């Protein structure tokens, strides 16, 4: 069957297919086996890896327009549908879209020919040049003058100084260090009040100390008690284990 050849074009897209069917193949719309077209498309989709809903629904719209047009041709006096576009409207939309696509295809053919004609015109890549001083073309789009841009950037660059960082004190706090600190404090006296020892420290120090505390709890070195949420934490050393618990830190 002649349409088998056309089916191979399905992957090119619905408009392509329709145009081929309606125009290039010299097939009257009455002779187009719409069912075969649908079948071919379904097979094409089934063969693909991912479902492309956008083009699927696009195809549905197209094929139903085609059906509507065909029905109109087969049954000239048929009763018009109550809602939705009339057969004439559907056909006009279909025609417009096929023509718009056809225009795009012609423009594409021109571009392809142009590209082929320009293929022999090579720009010499500056292989042995140093670092490129010119900015990349794309970054300059919309800027009237590159020279002005360079001048302005130089002014901004000259003005820029190292930001003042004197207010930033180097805060050094580590979980390991806080574990050591807690152990030393607990050796001196137990129980300890968290607020008394760390209440005035930076929030970061307090947070890291809590982490250190959790570490000591998991090792079974301390017991903690907090009477209410956000209240003071009482820390008590678990003495029974003896010296062995101190693994050097």
């Amino acid at each position: 069957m002649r349409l088998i050849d056309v089916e191979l074009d399905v992957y090119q897209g619905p408009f392509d297919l329709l145009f081929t069917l309606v125009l290039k193949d010299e097939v009257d719309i009455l002779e187009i086996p719409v069912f075969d077209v649908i079948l071919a498309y379904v097979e094409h989709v089934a063969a693909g890896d991912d479902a492309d809903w956008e083009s699927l629904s696009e195809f549905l719209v197209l094929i139903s327009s085609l059906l509507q047009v065909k029905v109109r041709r087969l049954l000239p006096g048929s009763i018009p549908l109550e809602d939705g576009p009339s057969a004439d409207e559907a056909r006009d939309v279909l025609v417009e879209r096929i023509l718009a696509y056809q225009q795009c295809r012609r423009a594409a053919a021109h571009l392809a020919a142009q590209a082929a004609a320009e293929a022999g015109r090579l720009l010499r890549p500056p292989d042995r040049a140093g670092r490129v001083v010119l900015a990349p073309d794309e970054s300059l789009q919309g800027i009237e003058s590159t020279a002005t841009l360079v001048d302005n950037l130089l002014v901004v660059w000259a003005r820029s100084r190292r930001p003042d960082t004197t207010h930033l004190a180097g805060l050094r706090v580590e979980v390991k260090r806080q574990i050591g600190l807690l152990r030393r404090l607990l050796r001196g006296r137990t129980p300890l009040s968290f607020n008394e020892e760390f209440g005035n420290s930076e929030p970061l120090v307090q947070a890291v100390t809590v982490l250190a505390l959790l570490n000591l709890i998991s090792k079974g070195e301390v017991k903690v008690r907090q009477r209410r949420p956000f209240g003071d934490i009482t820390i008590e050393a678990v003495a029974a284990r003896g010296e062995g618990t101190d693994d050097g830190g």
Partner: protein
Amino acid sequence: MTADKNAPSEAFGEGQVAGDITKHDLEALLFAAGRPVEIESLMGCLRGRGEVQADVVLQNLRELEREFPIDGPRGFEVVEVAGGWCMRTNRNAEPVLSGLFDTAETLRLSPAAYETLAVIAYLQPVSRRKITEIRGVNSDSPLRTLVERDLIVEVGRAEQTGQAVLYGTTSRFLILFGLRTLADLPPLESFEVPAEERAELLRRLGTLSAPD
């Protein structure tokens, strides 16, 4: 500075005016750049020689253009392309250049990619949705290819329709297609379906009465 100005001029032989230094410099710049360079950038480079006027630069570029015309007798040509000036090989040398490079490889695109590129070239800035609408099929894959080949870029976001990404062509597109600006593209109307073919389509779809 004066010594600099004179030295290369002497190389041109007797009877050469001092203005030739600009042409000499421009020739070197276009040769070395390996891509189109805007007049402003060329002027910026020439500043090391002293004050330069835009019209003098342009005049010299036009002279170079005459000396190395498109498809002329020389092996390379000086042309205005992609908003700048460049030196490129004469396409008549393509048969021999293909001994060095696979020149056809520069732009091997699928029909789908060319269609997508055509829509973007003519309708930019244009959204993915609009491209799909015109081609009647999802265009994600050709779009990816075109972005990878540096022929199109995201140029912005649509104010309406959910901030959709808008695509436009790059200067590489202009270079590869030998265009000074997008205005050099033939008008879109020139690709309209001829009346004859249009009538045939309408006839087959039953708008005009079929001969049977």
